[in-house]
């Protein structure tokens, strides 16, 4: 017995015709509506369809100097931010969030990136020193196909957002060197927020690779604005499918797409920051 079927959607060629798969079905791939595709008794619905996905990594300084207004404000903003990021992902991207805190120790909020729909913020407490280098090493370890970036549906380079209010207390350069050898870091969208007077923008620019993607917040109001601007803008740009071509129509490679995205992030962040509302709030460092 020989039963051979060749499914070739373009020419609808069926080399034997012995199988009764309708060749036309291969071309009929644009459903009119989701409901048209759903079978009430579809046994395959037990394994859901996953959209293209993007992971946003938040690296958050929880050292002692963040205690008080900074940490309180950050907790509140992050709780408010979740629904806003959720909206970014509503179109066609599943956004996942991973939060790494660093003080004397580095700790993840969850053991894996969590879909934004399921994500709940755990309010953070500040204490200890600023082990930023250790955080960079831990991030590098987890940003791997064998670890936090193991989802088959992962389609975009991650967004990495660093927030800190002080100078690292460990050898951050050693950690950064390790992180810089990680391809996900290289192609990821990086942004950083310095909080208060002590945060060193030069260190943050070393992390992001450019001053355009570093901003500073000196008050609670600014902190809320900056976190939202950076997180939402980078999630939007990060989840954009970009196929670039230059004037002559030549295709550009992954590296070009990455630099275009990083540049666009820098431009948009600077534009949004310069347009932000007046701030009459009391600076963090007043009276500290």
């Amino acid at each position, binding site marked *: 017995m020989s039963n051979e*079927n060749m499914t070739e959607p373009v020419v609808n*060629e069926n080399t034997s015709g012995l199988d009764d798969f309708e060749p036309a079905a*291969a071309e009929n791939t644009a459903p009119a509506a989701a409901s048209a595709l759903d*079978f009430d008794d579809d046994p*395959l619905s037990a394994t859901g369809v*996953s959209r293209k996905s993007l992971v946003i990594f938040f690296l958050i300084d929880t050292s002692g100097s963040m205690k008080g207004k900074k940490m309180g404000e950050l907790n509140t903003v992050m709780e408010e931010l979740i629904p806003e990021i959720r909206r970014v992902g509503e179109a066609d991207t599943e956004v996942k969030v991973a939060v790494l805190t660093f003080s004397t120790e580095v700790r993840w909020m969850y053991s894996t990136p969590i879909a934004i729909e399921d994500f709940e913020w*755990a309010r953070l407490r500040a204490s200890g020193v600023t082990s930023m280098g250790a955080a960079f090493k831990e991030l590098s370890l987890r940003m791997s196909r064998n670890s936090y970036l193991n989802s088959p*549906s992962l*389609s975009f380079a991650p967004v990495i957002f660093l927030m800190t209010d002080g100078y690292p207390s460990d050898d951050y350069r050693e950690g950064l060197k390790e992180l810089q050898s990680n391809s996900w870091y290289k192609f990821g969208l990086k942004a950083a927020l310095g909080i208060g007077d002590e945060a060193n923008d030069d260190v943050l620019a070393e992390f992001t690779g450019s001053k355009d993607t570093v901003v500073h917040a000196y008050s609670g109001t600014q902190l809320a604005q900056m976190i939202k601007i950076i997180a939402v803008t980078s999630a939007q740009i990060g989840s954009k499918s970009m196929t670039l071509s230059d004037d002559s129509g*030549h295709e550009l490679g992954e590296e070009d797409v990455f630099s275009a995205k990083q540049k666009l992030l820098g431009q948009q962040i600077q534009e949004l920051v310069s347009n932000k509302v007046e701030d009459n709030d009391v600076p963090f460092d007043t009276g500290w």
Partner: protein
Amino acid sequence: MFNGFSHSVKGASHEKTGLVCQDSSAYKVTDNYAVAVVADGHGSKKHFRSNMGSKFAVEATIEAIDTFFGDYDQFVSNFPKNHRMIIRNIQKQAIYNWNLKVNAHVEANPVTEEEKSKFTEEEFADIPQASYYGTTLIAGVAANDFTFGLQIGDGTLVALFDDGEAVMPMEYNEAAPANVTASMCNSNAASMFSGFYVENKKLIAMYASTDGLYTSFGSENDFLDYHTIITSQLSNLENFKAVIINNLTKRSHYGTEDDISLSCVYDTDMIADNMDLILSKVEENKKRAAERKAALLTKKIDNFE
């Protein structure tokens, strides 16, 4: 007795941009062996005929396997002893057949001015002819006493043997260098194939799929469980065909929007004999998936306030 099915759907992103489906899929069933094969044409600019390339890849591979099974008795007596070498030879034969088809196609259909118009003269001169047709290839072969597979480039093989577990059996990889897309069109394609061989387990079903299917899942566990569910439905393939076609279409539309191909071969007797086992695996997988989700959502950091 073997049976099978195969299907390809065009990705939603290709619908939007007016591109044709770059995937091809096929299966072949005989008394002695069955082959499931899929291929994913690269689709980018310089691979402007990769839809034909993927079609040639599935045809070339089935022809190569047919050739090796031609003298059945001799083949099955030699194969277990020399499986690595013979699989390598099948890979070489598939590449050879593919190149013959590509050459014949170019001869009958010279590159048009329109195809050339997207490149400068120098750029076009730099593209090897085989690259126009660049494609991946994944094939799984089930015989009465052994199972094997071969693969170049992305895509996945999943097999369910007599223990009912869905596994990805591809194991030995000759030399897949990092950051290089392995393709039938590479001049060193023969050195970029992966393969596997199993002789001590009875096969229930085996599936070859292009990466559009894999990337429509949130986790590898879900992807494997999906194949167990399909296997649980194969005792009534005729009724199940519409369901699987619609599911693949849904995955292509709401997942990563890529083309999706799935090809399957299975042993009807093994399906009948092991249906209770397969159904129990489906239930077990559901339970495990719920446990995984609950563990995932447990915070490592508690609220401090």
